């Protein structure tokens, strides 16, 4: 099941964090499963490094499979 980041909250421990997340973020049926992670345990890239980290990928269209023409005799893939 794919999970995505939904928000941040305070809690004294993991169990209460799950309960708080349930109360704060699933009130309108948004979810059926919750993962919580302590902020300390998240290693994150720095927003100021955005340029060197992500811009080099912008002009490398050949990394998308759609860049390549499939020879006719291969047929449907």
């Amino acid at each position, binding site marked *: 099941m794919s999970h995505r980041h939904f928000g941040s*909250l*305070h*809690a*004294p*421990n993991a*169990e*209460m964090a799950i*309960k*708080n997340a*349930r*109360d*704060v973020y699933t*009130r309108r049926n948004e979810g059926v499963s919750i993962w919580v992670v302590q902020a300390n345990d998240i290693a994150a890239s720095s927003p100021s490094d955005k340029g060197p980290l992500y811009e080099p990928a912008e002009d490398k269209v050949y990394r998308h499979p759609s860049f390549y023409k499939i020879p006719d005799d291969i047929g449907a893939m």
Partner: protein
Amino acid sequence: MTVSTDALFQCLLRLGDNTLILGQRLGEWCGHAPALEEDIALANTALDLMGQTRHWLTLAGEVEGKGRSEDDLAMLRDVWDFRNVLLVEQPIRDYGHTLMRQFLFDHYHLLMLRGLSESADSRLGDIAAKSVKEVTYHAERSAELIIALGDGTEESHMRMQDALDRLFPFAGELFETDAIDEDLAQHGIAPLPSSLRPAFEAQLDIVLAEATLSKPTDSFAHKGGRTGFRHTEHLGHLLASMQWLQRAYPGAQW
């Protein structure tokens, strides 16, 4: 022989008034709780209780057969006609008191609803079965908080013990059993409140031990709410703020 209409009506008022008054009390924290997460969690619990109230009081009105709606019963009765236990009308005081009251009520509530979900009257059974899911969560949450705060700092421990000492004498009324309860139990409508006490005490002992809190040994119990004999002065104040709009502008809708 079927159960008397009046016994069934009283039973539904007792259920619906408990959730109505406690829901209203919890609503007092909305926007004021000590942390955002607590604020939202308590408001969620209050809304669960209000939802249950609507089912109980709607059914109470139907059973009574005088054309009273859930709103009529909630907004147009005065203190002496309410059948909630004294515990739920007590003021919120500090957060420790609010949580301790919630913990005591949740564990009683869960046992009562489990019993009611087996009711011979499927109308009660269906409401109880739906409510059990909500209250299972309430009970888990309040127990965890009692443990966290009881076994927390010196200050939080002191406040939780203080709340327990003050509120425990109100727990006895939850298990008070009168002729109406006997009538209901005989017909398989609702469990005898007194039959729920051993399981309640067992659960209480487990949680309080983990929370390093001492249960008061005095068995004195404040009573009079669920029979309507005598409410505490707090209920009138609560009703004044809850009902004033319908009293000042009768029939107002929005």
